[in-house]
């Protein structure tokens, strides 16, 4: 099956700097996901809002009413 690169009869292999770039992006995503996992799943560190009024302003997230 032709690949998109083959449609142009050209080979565009991934060179080392590109692999490094993609690997850094991947690492950042994994770290970000891991930190989120730690906060929400392991520590259960988040706030419950019980009424519409208790939901804070998006630009001032500290203005909430914790249950």
């Amino acid at each position, binding site marked *: 099956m032709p690949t998109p690169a083959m449609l142009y009869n050209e*080979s565009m292999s991934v060179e080392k700097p590109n692999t490094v770039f993609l690997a850094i992006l991947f690492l950042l995503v994994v770290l*970000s*996901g891991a930190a*989120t996992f*730690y906060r929400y799943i392991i520590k259960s560190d988040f706030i419950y*809002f019980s009424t519409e009024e208790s939901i*804070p302003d*998006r630009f001032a997230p500290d203005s*909430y009413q914790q*249950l």
Partner: protein
Amino acid sequence: MTSQVQSLIEACQWAPSHFLVLSDNVFSPLLYYSYLGSVIPTLLIAIFIYLNGKKELTNRLLLLMGGSFAMWVFGAMVTWATEIPSHTMFFWTLLNIFEPFVYFFAFYFFYTFIFKKDFSLSQKFLFSIPLLPTLILAPTKWMLLGYDLSNCDRNAYEGILASYGYSLEIFYAVLIVIFAIVALRKLKSKEDREKTVLLTVGITAFLLSFSLGNILEVFTENWYIGQYGLFGAPIFVGFLAYLIVHYRAFNMRLIGAQVLVAALWLSVLALLFIRTIEDVRIVTSITLIFVLIVGIFLIRGVYREIAQRERIEKLAGELQEINERQEVLFHFIGHEVKGFLAKDAGAFASLSEGDYGALPEVMKPFVEEALVGARQGADSVGNILKASNLKKGSVTYTKEPFDLKALTVEAVEKARAAAEKKGLVLSFTADDSSYQMTGDKVQISDHVLRNLIENSINYTPSGSISVSLKKDPSTGLGAGKFVFAVKDSGVGITEEDKKRLFTEGGHGKDSQKVNAHSTGYGLYIAKSVALAHGGTIRAESEGEGKGSTFIVELPA
């Protein structure tokens, strides 16, 4: 979790989820259909393309885009199904991480596909840096403010960073359109422009419908709208498949059949999750439309393939007829030319030998040269005719016992004058064993022994040629084998030339620079004769300028 929270959650009476994604909390089983129906074709085509060129950057980027989209879909399905607030918070954040990445990789893929090059380092930095706030602040209250228990909807409440993510999506989509316009102004070829338009339409249809669905559902808080946005994915897959098929004359029937089978699998899978007749009607209608469209393409593909096959068969018949006519003509011309050259050679030989009286001294070199030329010409035409007969299978071999050593000595002695004329040292070694064998003496002598020795002389500008003959009893060829070898200090053979050395008309890359009279049929004939006698032939060389050794093994 406080007891107040616990009691509020219990009051909502959410159903438990299984395998994270299966639950009665999902408002309709059709949700699975829209999610799986979008992500499976996208992933299938991305994996399929990636496996066909793992090192291609465009293929990797398409896979990363499909992978990010699949992660998003998985996260979305969990948030629909789960009754556990911490799961909702985690997977909701993951959704917001992967969503801009779908757009980033789509843009990156688009750029490399259209411009046939990678981003420069500064472009990589410029286009990926906007993703950093999302990645760094994902676990903070700027991404999700908290869990909303006010209406039992199992929602997380999004912070300002989520809105930033949506603006990033628009940013990458706009970049795609801008770069598409730049490409269209730059590209000259009609085909390249068509490809750019098709990919731009396909990719923006996917990204914009995805964005619109996601943004509208957040701002209207109607979470069902997002489902419709997902149908941009199969549209993109369709455009991509069309690009591949149309511009590469790919086997439409194959891809059509694959898509059809995938569609049928999906519809059957979807039916497993459906409980109401109304939903069955909806799924069946969608499947019917899909199968109808793909079916038309499939039938057209089959028609086209049959027409192509018939055309190929017709052309093959015509080609065979032309070949046969040409071969007859070629043989006629060959025999005629060979006859004239043989007559010329005979006449020049008579003149040279003084059959018509002594030649004036001034004429002798010309007559000698003419004699050599006529003989070479007759040999060349003879070789070509011989190769043609070998190919047709019309060569007959006689079987008679002969002494291979005596034949080799005779071939060496016949070649000695030519070797000495070039200043080459020609030697022959053999032990006292018996070299009696059965075969076609003339063919072995002319086309194997003499051919290989003369070949070495032609391709050795200076140095030596050693011809050797030995008997090797330790072999699987019955009574052992005779090993005839010609080793020279000549031009050598490159690895590339070795591949076509024994093929019909197969010249080495620079062979005609060294030997202008080479027809390229000599070694092909030598190989055919050796094989016909149950033997083998091979060439060894350490490379260009390092000499070569030709080895023939014949059964004793």
